[in-house]
C-alpha cells in the first residue's frame, strides 16, 4: 500500500516536513521543484504511515484504497513521476 497525492495539492510542503522516509518529491530547492504542479509520493518508498495525510492543509493525500473516483488517475501519475525521474536522474 502507498499513499497518493491528488491534483488539488497546493505544494504547501507540510507533508515533506513530516515524512519519515523522505518519499515525497520534488523537494524545495530541487531543480524540478518550481515547475512541478504538485508533489508526488514514491510508492516504492512510502511506508503507509499517514503522517502526510495529517499534515496536508487541503486534504490532497489519500490511501491508495480510498482514492475518490474523480482522482482515479492519481496512483498511476505518482508512480509515473518517479519512473520518469529514474531515467533522468534523481532530484535532490
Amino acid at each position, binding site marked *: 500500500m502507498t499513499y497518493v497525492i*491528488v*491534483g*488539488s*495539492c*497546493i*505544494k*504547501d*510542503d507540510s507533508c515533506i516536513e513530516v515524512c519519515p522516509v523522505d518519499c515525497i518529491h520534488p523537494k*524545495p530547492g530541487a531543480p*524540478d521543484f*518550481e*515547475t*512541478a*504542479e*504538485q508533489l508526488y509520493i514514491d510508492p516504492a518508498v512510502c511506508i503507509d504511515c499517514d503522517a502526510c495525510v495529517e499534515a496536508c*492543509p*487541503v*486534504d*490532497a493525500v489519500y490511501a491508495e484504497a480510498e482514492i475518490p473516483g*474523480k482522482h482515479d*488517475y492519481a496512483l498511476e*501519475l505518482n508512480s*509515473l*513521476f518517479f519512473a*520518469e525521474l529514474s531515467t533522468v536522474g534523481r532530484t535532490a
Partner: protein
Amino acid sequence: MAPRVAIVGAGPAGAFAAACLLRARGDAEVDFFERLPTPWGLLRGGVAPDHQEIKRLQDTFHRQTLARGCRFLGNVEVGTDVTHDELMRHYTAVVYATGAQTDKSLGIPGEELPGSWAATELVAWYNGHPDYRDLEFDLSCTRAVVIGNGNVAADVVRLLTRSVDELGRTDIADHALDALRESRIEEVVILGRRGPAQAAFTSAELRELGHLDGVDLDVDGFELDPVSEEWLADQGTFTARTNVRLLREFAERPARAASPRRIALRFLRSPVAIRGDGRVEAIDVCRNELVRSADGAIRALALDGEEVETIDCGLVLRSVGYRAVPLPGVPFDERAFVLPNEDGRVHTPAGDRVPGVYAVGWIKRGPTGILGTNKRDAQETVDCLVEDLDALPAPPHPDRAAVDALLAERAPDLVTAEGWRLIDRHELARGSRERRPRVKLASRDELLAAASPG
C-alpha cells in the same frame, strides 16, 4: 519591546507571512490591513467554487494567524483610509502582500467592446467579490471565446460549461448561479498562442476539462510540431509531458455525442481583432508557428499569408497574465510590476533600502506559482524581517490603542476578526440550510450588516 508588524493584504501571501512571523517571533504583534471586509484574498475570491477542497486552507490560515492573536482590520484601504507614512508611525515594519490586482490587455482592436472582459472579472463576479457583483455578463450568446491557456482560463471555461446542478452545490455567488441558469452558451473555444506542449494548464486542470459531465472536449488536429517534440524531450517538464499525453488521449477518443455543451481547444492561434457593432459579435484569429529563439525559448510567430479565421461569438474573456498596480507612498518597478526588492526587503529603484518595508507574494515576485509557493516566499521575507528587527527603530506610536484611535476616525465601518467570525458563521449557517458548503454574502452592505453584533 515587542515588534509591531502591519501586513497589508490578508490574502494567502499575507497569511503565510503572518504565520511564519509568529513562529519566528511569538511576541510579535501582527495586524492585517485588508481592503475587503473578509480575509484570505484569492482563496475566497479566486479559487474556483468547484474546487472546495482547496478552500480548506482557510482553516489553517485561521488557526495559524487570527487564532494566535493576529488582528484583522478589514474594510480599510491602505493608501486612502490610512497612508503608508501613517503605518510607518505605528509599526516597526510594514509588509506589503497586495498581489497583482489588474490584468494584461491583449492590445488588439475591439478589446473595449461590451462583451469583452478580463477573465478575472468573471472570476471575481462568480466568487462574490463585492466590487464585482453588479457586472452584467451577457450569457445569451451560444459561443464564448477564452484567450489564454493557464489555470484561470481553465477555471472560467469550467464555470461556463458545468451544469447548474453541480454549481448549485458549491459556494458560487447566488447572482452568478442565477445568471448561469439562464445561460445559452453551448460552446467555449479556448485559444492558445503556442502549442499543446507549452500550455500553462496544470495537468490536473486539463484533465478536469476532459471529464466534465455533459461536456464534449474537442482537440482540433492534435499533432506536435518537431520544435515541440525536441523541446519536450530535452527540456519538457513532467506536467508538459502529462498534458501532451492527455491531449493525445482526448483527441483520439470518440466525441461524447449527446453532450449539450462543448469545449474546443485551439492551439497556435492568436486573436488579431474583436469585432462587432456596439458589442462583441466575432473574433478574428490568425495561425501561428513555433520557433525556437537563440535563448532556447519557444515563441509563436504569425504564419505569413494565411487567411484570418473569424469565429462568431458574443463573449470574449482574456486571461493572458496579471499585473500589480503601484501603491501610494512606496517604490514601484514600472517594468517588472513589483515592489523593487531583494529577498523581500524593499528598496528604491536606485537601490537604496527602505528600512522597515517588505514585500511578499505576487507584489514581490510577480504573478507566478501556486498557493503553496507563497509559503517559501513568505519564509524568505520573514527571515529578512526578523534579522533586521533589532536594527529597526521603534515607531513613534508603538501601541495598539493609537492604531485603534486612528482607525476609529478613518474607518468607521472597520471589520475586525470578530466581525469576520460573524460573517463566516452567517454564511456557513445559510450554506448548511441549503446543503452547500457556504452561501456568500456578496455586497458590502450585507457583509457589514452581518459583521455587526446583534
